[in-house]
């Protein structure tokens, strides 16, 4: 387990940038900027054009740590407090969940909530509560 510092300023700046990205994607391309939709659109696209545009979005995302390195001189911190087995189990569960729910933190939690979509509000409340519960059980009941 890692202690992490409370960083409200960079958290707020980062959050605003995520929001600006969502607003620009809607203003220019008319679409919801959800990470699930971006990845699914590359893996199983409806058209070649969809795969190309989502692929460029993903390429932009992946370029961000390198841009961060150029500006700050260091890669962004990625601290992984769980085992490789947990990473795989988590990845599969997240993949199943976001596909069934048609969205994740960005699609439902940011874009959908900003549209005041009841569907997205229900989805976000559900995954937030379950995530809180999962972390509590793993860390304080099972002691993982």
């Amino acid at each position: 387990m890692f202690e992490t510092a409370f960083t409200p300023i960079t958290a707020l700046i980062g959050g605003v940038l995520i929001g600006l990205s969502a607003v620009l994607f809607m203003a220019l391309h008319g679409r919801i900027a959800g990470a699930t939709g971006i990845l699914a659109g590359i893996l199983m696209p409806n058209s070649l054009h969809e795969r190309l545009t989502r692929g460029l979005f993903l390429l932009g995302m992946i370029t961000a740590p390198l841009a961060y390195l150029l500006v700050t001189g260091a890669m962004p911190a990625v601290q992984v407090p769980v085992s490789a087995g947990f990473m795989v189990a988590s990845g599969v569960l997240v993949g199943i969940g976001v596909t069934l729910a048609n969205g994740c933190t960005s699609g439902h939690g940011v874009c959908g909530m900003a549209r005041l979509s009841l569907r997205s509000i229900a989805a976000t409340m559900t995954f937030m509560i379950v995530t809180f519960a999962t972390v509590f059980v793993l860390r304080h009941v099972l002691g993982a």
Partner: protein
Amino acid sequence: MKLISTFLIGLLFGAGIVISGMGNPAKVLNFFDIAGSWDPSLIFVMGGALITTFIGYRLVLARPRPVFESKFSVPSNTTIDARLIGGSAIFGLGWGIAGFCPGGALPVMGTGRWEVLLFVGALIVGIVGTRIAVKALSAPQARSA
């Protein structure tokens, strides 16, 4: 312009993720650990993103159409069913195990860290497997024909 803008919007999204700390699983898990090593930073990430998007969408969606497309593609589905709630619960379970959501993990693939690539590989298996299973279950006649 259209394609370059998509890349730049993705870069903006990724920058937001790495600056905010959403790409750091330890930070995300600590947000959810109120009883332990609590780090409330994520409230500011979600708050900043939500307020910006809420105001921005009001301005953008009042326009007749997006710049590069003929119409806005906003989801019209309003059903709150077992699939939505069950899927969100499974997502929450997975998120609580490792602290990566798709939007947090995809940008930090750029760090080249093997743990991130392992997670995204498993994420892809989950997404593609579920898509195939849903398609097979929803159209059994079409598959046997």
